[in-house]
């Protein structure tokens, strides 16, 4: 029992050390990315295409739907308490500070997390990673950094895109319930919008992007020899991505309000 506990603790410590080492390698190679001859640049462009451009329709749809839900709920509940004027502040807080970053992150975790982990895991098993090393290509610089940059950039842009569509969605539904002129609606939203809301959405989306990409690439590289490890690593990329994004979201929100 004690021996098993010791082995478990030893394994966890080794995994943590490996994860930390991986993270620092990624940081170092990211810092050097612009200095390198940019053979990895097309990998970055492809990653933005897969993670950012191809997710635009689903993110827009979710944003429109959530914007509509918030305006319907808010427009129904708030007048009962004589707080209709709070509707714009609630829209801004809920969409830009919370739902925009976290729901965009969820979409990317579900779409790109397993895709990245599976692709890299397959490369490990088929010795493609060793082949990169054999020709002098650092796999972290060539395969991980473009994915980290591409996913992070995509999450940040998609979050702004989500916020925009969330607010547009709420406007469109508002026209059905209680038509408001376009200028009046968006003027009220801009009055409710504060610099800290923008900072919050940018900071959260940046951190979520880093978490999603580093976790997915880490689990892809953690595959050692067998194809049966690949689905497990994809599942872990999704699970840990969700958990770490939730924890980071809670911490950032706490720091903002405390």
């Amino acid at each position, binding site marked *: 029992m004690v021996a098993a506990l010791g082995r478990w603790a030893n394994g966890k410590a080794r995994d943590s050390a490996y994860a930390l080492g991986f993270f620092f390698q990624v940081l170092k190679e990211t810092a050097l990315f612009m200095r390198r*001859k940019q*053979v990895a640049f097309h990998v970055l462009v492809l990653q933005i295409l897969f993670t950012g451009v191809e997710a635009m329709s689903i993110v827009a749809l979710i944003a429109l739907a959530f914007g509509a839900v918030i305006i319907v709920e808010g427009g129904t509940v708030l007048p009962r308490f004589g707080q209709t004027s709070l509707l714009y502040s609630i829209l801004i807080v809920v969409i830009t500070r919370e739902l925009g970053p976290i729901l965009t992150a969820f979409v990317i975790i579900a779409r790109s997390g397993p895709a990245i982990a599976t*692709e890299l895991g*397959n*490369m490990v098993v*088929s*010795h*493609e990673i*060793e*082949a*990169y*090393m*054999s*020709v*002098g*290509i650092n796999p972290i610089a060539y395969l991980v950094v473009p994915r980290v940059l591409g996913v992070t950039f995509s999450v940040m842009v998609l979050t702004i895109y989500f916020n925009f569509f969330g607010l547009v969605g709420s406007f469109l539904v508002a026209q059905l319930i209680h038509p408001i002129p376009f200028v009046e609606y968006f003027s009220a939203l801009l009055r409710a919008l504060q610099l800290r809301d923008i900072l919050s959405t940018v900071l959260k989306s940046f951190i979520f992007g880093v978490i999603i990409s580093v976790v997915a690439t880490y689990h892809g590289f953690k595959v*050692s*020899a067998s194809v049966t490890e690949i689905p497990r690593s994809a599942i872990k990329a999704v699970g840990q991505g969700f958990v770490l994004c939730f924890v980071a979201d809670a911490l950032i929100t706490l720091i903002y309000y405390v």
Partner: protein
Amino acid sequence: MADIIALEDVRVTLGGFQALRGVSVGFVEGKSTVIMGPSGCGKSTLLKVAAGLIPPDEGRVLFHGKDIFQLSERGLMDMRRQNGFVFQDGALWENKTLFENLALPLQVHFPDVPAADRNRRVIRALERVGLEESASERPAALSGGKKKIASFLRALMTEPALLFMDEPTLSIDHAMTDRIHQIIRDQKGRGSTIIAVTHEAQLTSTLADRLVVMDAGQVLASGDFDEIKRSRHARVRAILSEVLKDIASYDTDLLSLLDGNGESI
């Protein structure tokens, strides 16, 4: 001649299994060395450690006397440019076309060469082995033999002085095997250092200047081919006989050497 690669008391554990147990061996510059041994004895691991693809848990790997795993980034790049590695399963990059597979090493090591010159070089290499029509195909669309040939071409794109080969003729037909033998003979003729893991008797017979015989993660014997095939070590003789028994037609005195003093192999 001096060792181009030397391993000093190298130990490697992979997935809890001790793949190499204190291996010390040198590979002489300009010579072709064949690593032999039963399946699972650590031959491929030794090859990858020697090529700097797997770091040892203990011990050192020296390239021209310098520890590979202590080299600066520039030093490592120089070393990689001078080395080529042919993987057992080809290990072509599946998300790239055959052309891109061959062009990438040139892009990495010669970034200042104009793209048109690089492309010409890749096309020339493909034409030499008759694969020019497959240039735009992905590896998944290629046969096993073509993948192996392509893996050779990729390893040779930077004209390396040292070539590592892991079972270069495994699971491919006669025609492809002949083409690969020709490529290897050409490399040997140019004076390249070749380190190969193979079970193929004909290749061993035509290629090996030196032999390394392994068993259970350890080197049992290493040295000149002629010297090793006369070894009195029972396990070495048993391992050699497994591979070399097939090559009597290529080396008429070999079986008699292995059967020396009437001993059965």
